[in-house]
């Protein structure tokens, strides 16, 4: 080994460089996660979970409820829409279909748009033009558009990974196109679709910029989906911006990090399952 690097000292330098780079990457992740967990867990006091919100206890229970409502709402809209769209582009459209080309271009555009632009659009369209006001509905609709490309892309990948023999077998037994898609292909693709939906949930949990001016920042429990409410991430932003409740901000970030860890783990698990099937 030593003679190997003596022959080419540059090689040693290069090897050290790449090892250093991956070490920095892993260190950044490890430091962030461990720092937040270690500093934050002591701040997880029962008062943070109290059922009434006051500016003193800054309970994050209302924000957790709001987050759950926005997750459910946006998945309910973007899920079916994205899955149906993916079924069209993968199963129905013929090769070289012009519509598919345009759809692909626009989906890529959507996934490249930063969340603040979605927030701005949601404010102009849902909040102002449609008169929905700062409300959970406005937030849900804005976020649905934002996660649509993610759901669509992962569903497309999942559908493509279903072997053609499934389709041929189904047609061979006399099933029509719709039945083949719904009864044969979709069930086989479900782990992949679920992995995508879980990733989308992760995006919603972490979203802030798109929600501040659509769902608003009211910290209390919502009275319905037409009232304003902040999600956990927005709550976290407000806490760290004000600088008055640093301990509570640490505690909130612990909850967020744990949720994100769980979501990543679950999504990986489902995509592995899909890999085994095909």
């Amino acid at each position, binding site marked *: 080994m030593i003679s190997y690097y003596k022959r080419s000292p540059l090689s040693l330098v290069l090897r050290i460089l790449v*090892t250093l780079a991956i070490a920095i*990457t892993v260190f950044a992740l490890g430091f962030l996660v461990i720092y937040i967990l270690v500093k934050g867990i002591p701040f997880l006091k029962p008062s943070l979970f109290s059922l009434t919100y006051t500016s003193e206890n800054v309970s994050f229970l209302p924000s957790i409820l709001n987050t759950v409502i926005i997750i459910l709402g946006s998945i309910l809209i973007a899920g079916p*829409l994205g899955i149906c769209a993916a079924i069209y582009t993968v199963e129905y459209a013929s090769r070289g279909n012009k519509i598919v080309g345009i759809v692909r271009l626009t989906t890529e*555009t959507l996934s490249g748009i930063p969340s603040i632009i979605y927030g701005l*659009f949601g404010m*102009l369209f849902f909040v102002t033009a449609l008169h929905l006001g700062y409300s959970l509905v406005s937030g849900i609709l804005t976020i649905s558009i934002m996660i649509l490309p993610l759901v669509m892309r992962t569903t497309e990948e999942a559908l493509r990974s279903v072997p053609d023999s499934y389709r041929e077998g189904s047609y061979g037994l006399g099933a029509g196109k719709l039945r083949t898609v719904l009864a044969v292909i979709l069930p086989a693709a479900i782990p992949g679709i679920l992995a995508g939906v879980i990733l989308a949930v992760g995006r919603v949990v972490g979203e*802030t910029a798109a929600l501040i001016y659509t769902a608003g920042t009211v910290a209390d429990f919502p009275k319905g989906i037409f009232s304003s409410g902040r999600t956990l991430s927005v709550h976290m932003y407000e806490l*760290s911006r004000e600088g008055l409740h640093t301990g509570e901000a640490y505690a909130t970030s612990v909850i*967020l990090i744990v949720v994100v860890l769980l979501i990543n783990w679950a999504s990986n698990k489902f995509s592995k399952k899909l890999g085994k099937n095909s």
Partner: protein
Amino acid sequence: MKFQFNTSFKEKIASHIFLVSALASILFVALICVFLFANGVPAILKIGIPDFLFGKEWAPTDEPAVYGIFPMILGSIYVTLGALAIGASVGLLSAIFLARFCSDRMHKLLKPAVELLAGIPSVIYGFFGLVVIVPFVRQNFGGSGASILTASILLGIMILPTIISVSEAALRAVPNSYYEGSLALGATHERSVFFTVLPAATSGIVAGFILGFGRAIGETMAVILVAGNQARMPNGILGGIRTLTANIVLEMGYAADLHREALIATGVVLFTFILIINLMFSILKKRVIQ
């Protein structure tokens, strides 16, 4: 006969539902463009294109109000370039490690870590920057700590997963014969990877850098918490800065009339940047596929 009619009817309905769903994304992009431009462009014209884009002063509460977003444009560009300098170098080298220097077993551990880095919410990055990187920069480099440098470091970390995954895919797409040919000519493993595989993957890697650039310029919540947010021309790497994205979030809450429209116009400028970046990315990606 009736049954047959029913099935073909069902098939038709279903295929139309699928088609309409697919068209939804076209509708959304059109809606976003129309609403942003219709609400933002009039303000730009009212203020005057050169005054708005190249005006060096942003003072919406002065009498008369001045709306020049040049400081924010520069702020966004500086912070993004700084992030790219950090994220691209560390990210590319990490991608090389993942693609060519590690065992399958190690890869199985490292890849989820990189994915996790992508999954952490930006507000958490911002908070981490606020409580760790800002004091670090203040103590070691001076200044208030909330600066271009801090924002660049934080954004550099945030775009790592984007750059790593795109670059790694590009490196893996290079045919193995390149590497083997180089080895057979007597080059070491490292030289083969860096001087034959890496150049062959250039366009894919550049596409990754462009995507990282887009991520960084659009990032909002993390930057707000660490960049200082002063709406003035940048003065040095340790000075504070406000980005286009931060400008929107910070002032939208209380802005009215022309001020509000000027903020939407700030969004229009950002959106135009993003559209250009996306276009460059898709052109490059097409070249990679060919």
